[in-house]
């Protein structure tokens, strides 16, 4: 059973009197444990696809099934629950809460998921070691480098052991060295822990770290 099953997905934005067709009938399946990169130029619809799979925006038509949950039938509250229980996000701009330390940024994700009082899993503690954040967890984001912030964001996204990790241009704000480090972490996560990852990128070198590359253009998948 695929982790993500998308059939005939369309998304139309209404901008004034104009309808913008961001997605024009997307079909995509992602199996559990797969590392998939979605590539494409600006305006190809990859971010819209990311937002719909992430439960951040509702689809216009078609079906999107995540872990057998049909997003089309979900309201805002259901999608919030889905994000909390099934998904982890990594963003280009890291999106850490600036007032909290790295450790607290991870803790708040656990708190939102209602897992704050549970002990950290051995798997997550192993992940923390591999992220090489020792000695940096008590610092606030402004005291961390971009690479460190993105590694904290990855830890935050995975602390609740989500079924699916969604990464939106995770190396977009990083230099080559840090980009390589982050991509290796993602690949390692996928290989060792069988973490399903869907990564959006416009960078072919980053996409090459994935098992499968899906190319989008003008709201459609052109190669899958």
């Amino acid at each position, binding site marked *: 059973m695929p982790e993500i099953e998308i059939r005939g997905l369309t998304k139309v934005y209404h901008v004034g009197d104009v309808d913008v067709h961001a997605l024009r009938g997307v079909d995509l399946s992602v199996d559990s444990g797969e590392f998939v990169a979605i590539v494409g130029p600006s305006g190809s619809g990859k971010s819209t696809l990311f937002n719909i799979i992430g439960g*951040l925006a509702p689809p216009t038509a078609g079906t999107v099934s995540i872990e057998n949950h049909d997003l089309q039938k979900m309201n805002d*509250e259901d999608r919030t629950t889905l*994000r909390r*229980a099934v998904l982890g996000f990594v*963003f280009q701009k890291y*999106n850490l809460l600036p*007032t*909290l330390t790295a450790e607290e940024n991870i803790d708040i994700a656990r708190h*939102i998921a209602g897992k704050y009082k549970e002990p950290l899993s051995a798997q997550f503690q192993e992940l923390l070691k591999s992220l090489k954040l020792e000695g940096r967890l008590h610092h606030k984001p402004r005291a961390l480098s971009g690479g460190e912030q993105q590694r904290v964001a990855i830890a935050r996204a995975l602390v609740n052991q989500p079924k699916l990790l969604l990464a939106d241009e995770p190396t977009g704000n990083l230099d080559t060295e840090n980009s390589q480090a982050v991509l290796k972490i993602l690949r390692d996560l996928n290989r060792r822990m069988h973490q399903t990852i869907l990564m959006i990128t416009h960078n072919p070198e980053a996409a090459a770290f994935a098992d499968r590359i899906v190319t989008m253009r003008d709201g459609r998948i052109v190669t899958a």
Partner: protein
Amino acid sequence: MINRLVFENLKHRPVRTLVGALGICLQVTMILTLVGLSRGVLGSMAERQRGSGADIVIKAPDSSALSYGLNMPEAIVDLVRGMPHVAQATGNLVHPISNLDSITGINLAEFNRMSGGFKFIEGGPFRAQNDMVVDRIFAQQKKLHAGDTFNYGHDWHITGVVEEGKLSRTFADMQALQEIFGENKKVSVIYVKVDDPKNTDSVIADIEHRLEGHKVYSMAEFVSLFTASGVPLVEGFTEVVIGVSAIVGFLGVFLAMYTAVLERTREIGILKAMGASPGYIMDILLRETLLLAFVGTVLGILATYGTRALLAQIAPNLPQMLVPDWYWKAALISIVGALIGAIYPGMKAARQDAIEALAYD
């Protein structure tokens, strides 16, 4: 964890936090200062009335506890003096100078007998027609000393400064006052001392019988009327100030929280992406508001010590009492006002679109 986030958020924007807390501080200070002032002023008036040494107070038919009606004939004093169980009776003429100021004409010998007499800090009693004695508070306020001349509805010569707490703040000879202001043989109020406090009620009944329509109070009853609830004007004024201060606090919190929501649009988007529900977001903002309200209330209570000290320096005739029994009421008003002020910003935050919020720079 939420508390940590709330605390860090407030710490992160100290100016915004300060503005929100100061709005509530101002609200609490306004309420507590006004209540403290009304109690202090009315309390000192009551204290001065008790300082007369009288057991019974007689006022004109059209008067109230805090106002004087048409003056009464002085002959009534002799009538009362002749009643059974009346040990002493003395009439006073209270002449208004301005809205809240007046001068009290007394028969010094009778007044001394009833009250135990003045304690002079400077100078001595009045002797001539234009002589005036003032209490320490009035002298301090007007910067007067014995020997000064002072226009107070008339040109007076200050002969002495006395300790406060006896009937009035300004005194002149009653006969002189009657002549100066054309109130010959008239008094505004009569103070009566009975031979035994046990006879107070029977003497009051006797006076009411003989002086039909006049207002006759025991001293205990009379001073009990010196409360804000006994003075409709003060009570109404207090309500207005509470209303205005609640609006000030509401606006302070509304602005602070609205700014907070705008400033933290992206952070709210991050929380939503992580699966935070609208209730979770609202919870954060309401906790921030409650913390602001708590800090503002504590600052407001502390500030009343400052206003009290300030008033004691610049307006000693306006004593402000500390009113601990009102602390919880002021806190409740500020908290309710603050929570109402946080509702709209909170709803705006809770309804924020996660994608738009994440795209916000």
